[in-house]
Each structure stands twice: as C-alpha cells, then as structure tokens.
C-alpha cells in the first residue's frame, strides 16, 4: 500500500503542477472578461506576483472550496453576485480584509459584514423604455413597486426567475417590505408581462426597441455593450431606440448589485491577496475595468464609461445592504415560484 | 479402452425440468458414435456439457479415467482437449482459412505446415488465403473440420455438421470424413437427426428422447 501511495502521489504531482511558488495569488472567479489577462499581467509586472486563475460557476466554486477545506490553495473568491459572497461568508470561509486603504475608498454598504468581502464594481438594475410608447408622465418617478399597477398590463418584458439578477431584485424587495407584501406585488406584476419570460437581459432591451414590450427590466451595463457595437449592428440599432430610467429615485433609490471578492480563511498567500484587491481598487485599474465592462466604479473619483454616463450619473442608489440579497434569495425563489413567475 | 465415461448425468436449465436425465454412457477410443433424436430432445445439450460449455447439474464425466467435471469441480473447455464443430461452422470472420486452422494449435514451430496438412486432407489447401465469406458452405464445413482436428483433440464433437449442405455435397463429405476419422483413429461423437447419415458414419447409435437414453430400434 505504501509503495502504491507513493507512486500515485509522485505521478499526480508530476501531472498536477503543484503550487509551491512563493510569489503568487490563487483566484477562484466567476467573473470573466476579455481583458482579464492583460489586467493580471499588469499586476504581475507591478508586484512580481503571479496570478493563477480557476474560473467557473460561482456555486460550484463554493462547493470546491468546501470539500478542499483547509487544504484549499485558493486565496481569493471573486464573483459577480452578492448572494454568493453572502453564502461564502455564512459558511465561514472568509476572513476580515485588513487593509486601511480599502476601507478608506469603499463605502460601508459595499463592504461585507466584518469587512469580509468588498465590492469591486457595481451595476444597477434599471428600467429601459421605448419613448414612442411610454409617456413622460408614466415614466416619471416610476418605481419597481409601481410596475404592479394595472396600467402596465401586457407591457413589461423581463427574463425568467431562474436569473440571479431577478432573484436579487426580489430579495431586496423582501428586505424592504417583507415577504407578504412583496408576494402581493409579484402576483400583480406577473400579470403585466408582455410575453413569457425568455432570453437574456439584452433580449429584453431588444424587445422594447422592437415594440414587443414597452418597458423592460435589465442591468445597466448591457446598454453600454450594445451601444459599443461589439455585439453587432442589430443590437446597436436596438439600443439607440431605448431610454434608461432609474427607478425609485424619490424613495430608497435604484437596486444595485455588485461584483465582489473576499480573502479566504485558509489563504496560503493572504499578503498577496490583499495586494491584489488593493490593485483592483486602484484608480487606474477601476477606470480600465469599467471602460471594458460598462459597470459603475466603486471609487468616487472614477467615472463610468461615457456611453453609460450619458444616461445619468449620481443617481440615488438603494442603500439596502447587499448582504441581504443572499439572505433572502431562497425566499425570493420560493415566492416567484408561488406567483407563477416562470 | 474407454476414453469417455459419463455417469448419472443430469442437467436442468430451470431447476424443475430436466433437459438431460440420468445419462450413462461410455465411448471407446477410436469409436465413432452418433446420437440421434428429435429436435429439442437434449442431444445438443449433452454435447455442450461434454465440451464444458454448459455445466451439468449432477453427475460425473471422465476422460481417460480422469474426472473432468462433477458437481464440485470442472475443467474449463479450453483445457479439455475436445474439438467441436457446430452447424453454422463458426469460422472466425477476421481470419483467413489458414489462420483459422492455426488458431487452436498451441506453440509449435510446425504450426503452419500442420495446418496446411489438414487443409490438404480436406482438399481445401488452395483456399488457404481466402476469407470465410469468400468460400462456399461446403468448403466452410471442410475448414471447420480441419480447424477442429488440427490441435489433435482427444475427442471430436460434431453438432449436425452436414445439415446445411445439399444432398450430393453431403454424401461426398460423408465418405471423406469417415475415411479421415478412421485413418486418424479419432474418437468422434456426432449429433444428428438424420438416421441414414448416422448409420453410415458411425459404429454405434444412441437414441435420446426427452432427455433420456432410450433403448429403442
């Protein structure tokens, strides 16, 4: 058995390039962009620290963290959904990020409880509308809650309830109004759909442009991508036809979700991990990231990409703790199932 | 001298009805025996049990005074040195004729010549490089016989070997094979439903009916 063990171990270590280098940082991420490589190369150039990446589905990576336990090589967990951050924290895999410079630039509601994770970029879930079929009066001061009103019957496009952005939105409503009230809202909201929920966020924007629906709920950065022309002429044309509205400006503000990251409790390179997060939250990098992703920056002195900024900056953001999205996410799904939101 | 001895042999497929019931049989060295009976009487099962392809429920089989199988113990077919030719010949389709014949011959430098010799005996030496599907049914049967005899088995078992052939081909092969078996002094057990064929080929006839040896005719 002993020989057999040794053989297996030698064999696997030959095949499996074990991570024993001193200067590196291991990142489990469910956020992927074209420019990631350039960003990591820049970090390595600046600090001499090599960035190792496993990108994958957020929930699956959490499961990998769980079974790897204290042997996990991961230093950083990076994801595009606050719910997953909440989940990792609840499992107790994160530790506090001890960095004064991070604390000084990131507002408290964009940091996790006990500073165990931090937002890297943010996005708003906004209303897109077709100015041809929606009047100024209708759109003025429109809130998420208003969308349950009968005047919107057959006019709303939104994707399926399997989508985490919708789940987070409903979770934030639960956090503010409680389950019962939110459920009553959702029951009416669902009857206002223009079509069965289908397709991506961008498909909803296209539906509004084509007149299949009058308004759509989708994330803010998609319009930026569509306007950039990177996703084709059809989408560019469609994007030009719609306008963006920030809901709930006269009360708690527009629903915000984040891309965020935290440092793992068993992180073998936590010094490097802190350096990496500080790097992501530095001015140049923030500017670089939002110019590619069309998200909103975390730092006040960085502007979003011009095409996104043109729809308005400095809108009022919902200060509901993003950690609540995770907490109420299971409730949100059950609620959507009950109300027949497919 | 007795070469094959079967005692109190029973065989059942479903633990209720016997396919073979209390078979007792002994066959002498160099003897050609035909087993006759209607289809479904159990004669093929008997052959398969002797070959070791089927294991009997009860009873003992001895070859050359040595037990090759009983209730507790059984020598697998590949170690019994028994040759078998079945009705559909079962030539290996991926091997040519000569390699089919060589297949069963154990390590032997003279393999090739030995096989050639047997093809010669059965008058199919010119087919050596052909593949089974390229030759006729009668030729296939000759090759199958050559293949079964080439490893020098103690006993040769033939299961309805000529039934798929037409009459003239049949009688031609009857004459030839009987001559060859006798020349080589082979012990042969033939399963047949053709009484004339059995009478012509063999020294002795055994009748089986409903899984039992019957003393008839």
């Amino acid at each position, binding site marked *: 058995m002993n020989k057999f063990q040794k053989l297996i171990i030698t064999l696997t270590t030959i095949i499996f390039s074990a991570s024993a280098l001193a200067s590196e940082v291991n990142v489990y991420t469910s956020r992927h962009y074209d420019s990631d490589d350039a960003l990591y190369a820049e970090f390595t150039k600046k600090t001499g620290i090599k960035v190792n990446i496993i990108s994958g589905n957020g929930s699956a990576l959490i499961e990998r963290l769980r079974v790897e336990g204290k042997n996990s090589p991961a230093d950083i967990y990076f994801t595009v959904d606050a719910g997953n951050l909440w989940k990792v924290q609840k499992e107790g895999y994160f530790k506090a990020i001890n960095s004064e410079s991070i604390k000084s630039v990131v507002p408290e509601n964009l940091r996790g409880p006990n500073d165990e994770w931090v937002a890297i970029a943010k996005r708003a879930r906004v209303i897109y509308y077709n100015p041809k079929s929606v009047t100024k009066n209708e759109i003025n001061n429109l809130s998420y809650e208003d969308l349950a009103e009968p005047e919107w019957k057959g006019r709303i496009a939104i994707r399926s309830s399997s989508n985490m952005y919708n789940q987070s939105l409903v979770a934030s409503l639960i956090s503010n109004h409680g389950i019962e009230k939110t459920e009553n809202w959702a029951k009416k909201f669902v009857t206002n759909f223009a079509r069965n929920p*289908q397709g991506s966020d961008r498909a909803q924007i296209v539906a509004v442009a084509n007149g299949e629906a009058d308004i759509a709920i989708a994330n803010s950065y998609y319009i930026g991508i569509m306007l950039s022309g990177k996703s084709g002429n059809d989408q560019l044309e469609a994007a030009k036809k719609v306008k963006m509205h920030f809901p709930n400006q006269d009360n708690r503000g527009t629903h915000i979700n984040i891309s965020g990251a935290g440092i793992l409790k068993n992180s073998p390179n936590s010094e490097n991990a802190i350096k990496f997060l500080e790097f992501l939250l530095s001015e140049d990098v923030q500017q670089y990231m939002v110019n590619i992703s069309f998200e909103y920056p975390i730092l006040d002195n960085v502007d979003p990409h011009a095409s996104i900024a043109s729809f308005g900056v400095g809108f009022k953001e919902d200060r509901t703790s993003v950690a609540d999205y995770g907490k109420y996410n299971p409730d949100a799904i059950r609620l959507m199932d009950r109300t027949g939101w497919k | 001298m007795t070469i094959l001895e079967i005692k109190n042999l029973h065989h059942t497929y479903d633990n209720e009805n016997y396919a073979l019931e209390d078979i007792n049989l002994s066959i002498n060295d160099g003897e050609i025996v035909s087993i006759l009976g209607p289809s479904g009487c159990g004669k093929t099962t008997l052959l398969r049990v002797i070959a070791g392809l089927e294991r009997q429920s009860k009873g003992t089989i001895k070859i050359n005074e040595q037990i090759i199988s009983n209730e507790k113990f059984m020598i697998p077919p590949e170690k019994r040195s028994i040759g078998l030719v079945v009705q559909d010949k079962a030539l290996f389709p991926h091997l040519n004729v000569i390699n089919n014949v060589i297949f069963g011959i154990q390590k032997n430098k003279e393999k090739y010549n030995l096989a050639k010799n047997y093809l010669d005996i059965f008058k199919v030496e010119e087919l050596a490089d052909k593949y089974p*599907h390229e030759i006729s049914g009668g030729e296939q049967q000759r090759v199958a016989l050559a293949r*079964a005899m080439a490893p020098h088995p103690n006993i040769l078992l033939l299961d309805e070997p000529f039934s798929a052939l037409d009459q003239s081909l049949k009688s031609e092969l009857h004459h030839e094979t009987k001559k060859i078996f006798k020349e080589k002094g082979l012990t042969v057990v033939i399963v047949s439903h053709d009484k004339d064929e059995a009478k012509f080929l063999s020294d002795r006839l055994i009748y089986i009916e409903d899984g039992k040896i019957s003393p008839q005719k």
Partner: protein
Amino acid sequence: MVLASLLGDYSDNWAHLYDYVLVDYISNTLYLIIGVSLLSLLIGTVTAWIVTTYDFFGKRFLEWALILPLATPPYILAYTFTGFFDAFGTANNFIRDIFSLDQSFIFFPNIRNIYGAVIVFSFTLYPYIYLVSRSAFLNQSRSMLEAGRMLGLSQFEIFYKLSLPIIRPAVIGGLMLVIMETISDFGAVDHFAIQTFTTGVFRTWHGMYDLKTAMQLASILLIFVATFVWIEKISRKKALYTSGTSTFKPTKKIKLLKYKAFISFFICFIPILIGFILPITELIIWAISYNLSFFNEKFLLAAMNTILLSITAAVLCASIALIINFSIRFKKYRFSNFLSSFLSLGYAVPGLILAVGIVQLFALIDQNILFNSDIILTGSIVGLIFAYIIKSYALANSTFESGFQRISTNLDDSARTLKSSGWNLLSRVHLPLLKTSFLTSILMVTSEVVKELPATLILRPFNFDTLAVATYIYAAEERMFQAAAPAIAIMLVGLIPIILLTKMISSSRPMDK
C-alpha cells in the same frame, strides 16, 4: 455520491417544490423526452435506411456528413437558433427585406419553447441513432430482405416491417444516449427558459443554496433513467436478435435516378443543414465580425489541452468499457453487469452535479485513503480524466454492447474448444472483430469530451483552459458574438474524430475487403 444524497434529510424546500413547480419540471421533461425521441428516431433511422439501401448522386458524401452535427453542442445550436430565428433575427429580417414587409411581420414562429428545444436536441443528437442504425442496416442479411420482397412487400414496407424491428435493440441503445443527454442538458433549456428537472436542480442549488435538495432531485432523475434502462433490458431479453450466421453478404444497393435521387438527397441533407451548416455559418459570421483575435497562442494551448485530454480519456474509457463488457459476456459476472449499468448512468447526470459529486468523492479519497496533506485528486488532470470517463462511459458501453451482440456466441464456443479463453480470447477473437466498435467508442468519447464543460470548469487545475472553457467564459455573460470563435474551434476540433470515424466506417464495412 449523488445518489447517496437520497439517504440524507429532506429539507422544507421539498414541500415547496412539490406544491409549486415539480409538476412543471416533470411534465416539461417528459414532453422533451418524448418529442426528442420521436424526432431523432425519425431522422436517424430514415436517413440511415436511405444511405444503406439506395445508391444515388451524393450518397457517399451524405453517408459521412450525416454524422457532422455530433460536433455541435446543443447549447451552441440553441444560441445560433435564436440568433437566426428570433423575431428580429437573421431569418426574419431576411424575409422582411425580400418582401419589403412591415416590422411587425414575423414569418418564423417563436422557437424559444419546448418545440424549439425538441428541434435543437433532435438535430444535434440524432447521429447517435444514425450511427447504430446504419451499421445495423449494413449487417442485416440480404436473404431476409429478399424474402421480404418475394412476399410482395414494398421498399417502404420492408423498412418498417422488417428492417426497423430487427435493428430495434441497436437503435434503442442509441436512443438511450439521446435521452440521457437531453435530460442532463442545462445550457440549451436554460437559454430557451424551459423549466425542466435539470434547470430545477440548478435553481434549487444556486438560488436556494440547497445543494442537498438539488442532489436529491438529480437522484430522482437518475432513478427514473435507471428504471427505464431496466425495463428496456427486460423487454429485450425476450427476443433473440443476433442472427445466427457468422458470415455476411453485403446487401446490394438499389440505384436511384433523377427526381427520386434528388428527394433522397434532400431528405438526408436537411439534418446536416440544420444541425451543422446553419450553426457554423452563423458562428463564422459572428466571429469574423467581432472576434478573430481569439486565434492566438492561448487558443493553441487550449486546443492542445482539449485534444490531449479528450484522447487520453477516450482511450481509457473505451478500454474499460471493453473489459467490462467482455467480462459480462465471458464470465457472466453479475457485478460487472451492475457496474456497467451504474457507470452508464453517469451520462444522465447534469455535468455540474456530476462534477460536484466527483469533487466530494475525491475529497473523501484524498483524506481517507491517500493520507496526504496536499490535495491530490481534486484539481488534478487525473481527476479530470476520471470525471470524463464516468461522464462518457455510456457512449463507449453502448458501442461495445451492440458490437458484442453481433458476435455469434458460437464463435466463443469454438474458440474455447480450440484452447482459447480469457485474455487470449479477447485479444485474438473479440478485439479484432470489435476493432470498429473500439475506434467508434474512442471517437464518440473524444467528441463528447471536447464539448464537455461543467466538470472541466470545476475540476481543472489553475490556469488550465480547454476550448469549451473559453467558450463558456464569454457565453456566461451572454456575449455570444465573442464566444463564436472558440465555439467554432470546438466544432472544428470535434470534427477531427468525426471525420476519422467516418473514414473508418466507410472503409471497414464488416467483413468485406
């Protein structure tokens, strides 16, 4: 590991699922299975019958081109389908442009529904049925077909009264693969927003953070599949389908001319058009317009990884399937029979769930058996290959099962009386006769692994990319235009084994030199 979840506790979420969504999951999944089964059977058997029975212009091309859609992962066809047929997609815009119609005119019906999904799965998965039917048709005896004609049956009657029933066991094997792949798929049904059992599994896990209930849902799916397999096996036992003869006469082809030839060509061409030409054309258009820079050294590395991994996994998988099937035939071990059925189920498990099950299994092995403080199996190539083998065992197994069925047991008997058994029998008789099966299963597994994504995502080592990973990274954020380039690469790399496969089957018609 997944099944073990059934023994655990049941959370409150079950009551919720039962009350509100389970009926939807079950009915949608059933509709999908029934629709895909019927359509893929129709496409697979009819095209196979045409190319094996008739001879006409373009037949040689169709014979291998019909396998091409195997290179298209269902989710990629789903993406390109919507790009093409959506209300304002390429096809509808085109029709509007030609007839200068109003914006509100929509020619092609909405395909983001269960019918669309049935079409997507059928046109990407029918090659599994085509492959087995084709070889079964080629192997059926000419005399039987001639007997049919003498009895006054028309060509069409021969097809459905004689040929079809006789190839049934082979076809059912192929159909099982189609069904298993359909129910385990997540990408395509999610894109069409159809709530199936598998999307339910992910919803429960990702959204309700309830992995246990998700695993239990997956287990129910597995039990369903297992029951199905079992019923099929029992019903098959009653009839003996192996033809007794070990020799073979090739069936003579009937020559078709003019319009008949044209119709045959057309019928066989449709599946290729929808399952392969359409998606790859759309992808090429996207790639050329938006992302050619993908083809750099990183791409080469990912392609190398993909090829090496898939071939290693395929050879191992085929060898294991061969040995298990041999031991079932030769030794009649009940255990091997069970093991084979059990491993086959891996194909029906949604990839990500399977991956998680394997991660848990590895963690157990790492901690309890290897007693080593470093993680060994998790995040290693060995682990990845292991996962691929479990995922694609069913593919290799089905090829060998039908391969072994075609070898008359008389050959085994003869070989044994000729002093050959065990390894000797395997290597001298079965392996040469199963050469085609062996290569077929290697190639089928290769093309499956090339497409495989979820297990790769979670089990891979750091900085290790395959082509499917590269596609996912874009597609996950709905950037299909950027995903087009790596998606084309997947299809192209997937083509290599398929072209080899077709070369092989056309050169090695059973027993004819």
